[in-house]
């Protein structure tokens, strides 16, 4: 039962990792490949996605531990597991979830049968979560400070962001000539809920020194800030928590904080069988303006103790008052801007093995050779609070029958060094189907996987008769 739960969660809630869609990228048999490169060499007369089923994707990634490490039913005490995970993690390790669901999508060729210009559009919902392992605070919570005299617990380890948003987009791509395809996509973001706490700093320090009058030297320097948008209402006492999912959904599509973004991409053929592509996705921002609230703890506190002063008259001191004055809790209601995690993709692809054509003749006299095999490499990079995420992928794609394409990938990144992915895209009649899965080797025990990702979807694609 729990296995099923996990799979359901994997399948529909979480999305594989780092948002790297290495199997989908440049897999031009799938119309949705233009979402990761608006300049992908995709062609159709028109297409539309099966509503809600055209693009389901999920990534989950955790660079230092797996679900098994924490939740294995193996008799090991849970507290020991937490301690092990913490010991094996650094503050650069992260846990990430990304999930996308296309509500609808479509596209069509503009400018007549010979035109090679296309417009595509759609709406999708996205959930993003990124948290770095709060290692120092974890140690402080597990051990306290007694066994860590002289250590500065770093408050910057607290680094988390989460967002639910919907994206309305319109894209355009055009095959300028035989060598070059250019494309762009404009995006309107509507964020239903955002929480950002990524620029914290400060430390908690306990030291001991012989020359000092007090037993310990105790300092807290704090610059902690949590910004939220669309969430403050849920924390009010009179709010009924049962309404949270519905209210977030409503805000996401109809009453969100708005933002703008841009995708751009290109495909360039050095030779007919040597292709270069590059794209930048989600270069954009959201102006968080709905129900914004910022909590801040900023200040410096040096704790000396409850020290008596034997003067004739003095007001008794109060440690708590001192602390609250030194590091006051502030609540602000300023709007703020968040930047979307921007993704960069690039690929080089070499094709070989000419396809035998079943056609009797090519009446138009224009011969475009098609290749059965493609081999190449891809680069993925994504902006993140601490350092960018980078992944390298080698791939092989093969056209098996007229309407069936298979792509296999090997990806190397911070989450995994043995990430093998496989994708299938096929067309039956007008129905285009695709299923892409990565980390195949981990399927034998998904609970031990550091990352999983999949995308699947159904579209109806219509080509010109001559195509």
């Amino acid at each position, binding site marked *: 039962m729990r296995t099923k739960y996990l799979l359901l969660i994997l399948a529909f809630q979480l999305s594989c990792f780092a948002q790297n869609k290495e199997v989908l990228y440049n897999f031009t048999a799938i119309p949705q490949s233009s979402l990761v490169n608006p300049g992908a060499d995709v062609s159709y007369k028109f297409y539309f996605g099966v509503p809600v089923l055209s693009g389901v994707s999920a990534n989950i990634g955790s660079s230092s531990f797996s679900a098994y490490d924490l939740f294995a039913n193996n008799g090991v005490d*849970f*507290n020991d597991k937490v301690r092990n995970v913490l010991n094996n993690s650094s503050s650069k390790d992260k846990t990430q979830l990304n999930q996308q669901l296309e509500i609808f999508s479509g596209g069509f060729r503009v400018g007549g049968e010979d035109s090679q210009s296309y417009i595509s559009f759609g709406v999708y919902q996205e959930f993003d979560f990124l948290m770095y392992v709060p290692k120092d605070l974890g140690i402080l919570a597990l051990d*306290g400070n007694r066994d860590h005299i002289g250590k500065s617990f770093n408050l910057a380890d607290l680094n988390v962001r989460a967002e639910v948003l919907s994206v309305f987009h319109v894209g355009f791509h055009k095959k300028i000539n035989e060598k070059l395809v250019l494309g762009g996509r404009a995006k309107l973001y509507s964020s239903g809920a955002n929480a950002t706490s990524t620029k914290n700093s400060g430390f908690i320090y306990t030291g001991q020194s012989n020359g000092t009058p007090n*037993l*310990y030297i105790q300092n807290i320097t704090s610059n902690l800030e949590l910004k939220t948008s669309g969430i403050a209402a849920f924390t009010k006492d009179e709010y009924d928590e049962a309404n949270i999912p519905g209210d977030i959904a409503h805000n996401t599509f109809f009453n969100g904080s708005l933002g703008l973004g841009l995708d751009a991409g290109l495909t360039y053929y050095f030779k007919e069988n040597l292709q270069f592509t590059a794209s930048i996705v989600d270069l954009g921002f959201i102006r968080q303006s709905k129900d914004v609230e910022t909590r801040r703890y900023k200040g410096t506190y040096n704790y000396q103790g409850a020290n008596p002063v034997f003067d004739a008259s003095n007001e008794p001191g109060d440690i708590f008052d001192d602390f609250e004055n030194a590091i006051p809790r502030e609540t602000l209601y300023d709007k703020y801007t968040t930047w979307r995690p921007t993704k960069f993709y690039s690929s080089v692809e070499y094709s070989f093995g000419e396809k035998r054509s079943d056609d009797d003749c090519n009446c138009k006299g224009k011969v475009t050779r098609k290749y059965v095999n493609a081999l190449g490499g891809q680069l993925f990079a994504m902006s993140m609070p601490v350092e960018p995420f980078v992944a390298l992928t080698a791939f092989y794609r093969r056209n098996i029958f007229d309407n069936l394409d298979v792509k296999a990938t090997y990806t190397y990144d911070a989450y995994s060094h043995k990430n093998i992915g496989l994708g299938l895209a096929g067309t039956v009649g007008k129905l285009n189907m695709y*299923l892409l899965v990565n980390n195949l080797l981990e399927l034998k025990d998904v*609970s031990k996987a550091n990352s999983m990702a999949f995308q699947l979807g159904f579209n109806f694609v219509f080509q010109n008769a001559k195509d």
Partner: protein
Amino acid sequence: MKASFLKRISTTILLSALFFSCSSDLDFDQTKDLKLEPVFVANLAYFDVPANKFVDNGTEQQIAFDEQYFDIFKEKFLRDNLAKAEFNFELENTVNRAFTLNILLLSENDQVLETITLAIPAYSGTTNTIKYPTEVFENQRLDVLKQSRKLGFVIVMSPGPPLSASSTGSLKLRSGATAYMVIE
């Protein structure tokens, strides 16, 4: 026909791979077992009273008194999760008079809940530092501690050679608290 058949087969296989993949038995209920047992140390109080402070206008003051708010146990979190506490005291006396320090745990309305008495002999030219046995607060004694809201400090000077404004030496207190938390 054959092609679409193969397509279906391969799609089915891939779907099966995804949905019939295996997972070790996971138990998410064990998060309930999470039990944090951190141990925190902190300064409790210190003072450094020079000998001439016990002389006011040429008259010896036998007793010095002060109280400080110690209201951390107003916090429910601390009351609920503190399982054991320890106080450590260290006195150093370089005044040629003996002293007794009484540390009072006081309630909100200044009722004395407990008195910790620390005595130290007069300074005679050699090192005169005493580390007192750890005061351990558990069970009932811990409950008393949790009711305290103020700390009182009473220094009582024992009889001996008279002090003057030019007397040397001082009485020093260093102290720390150790808090054993159990958070479930």
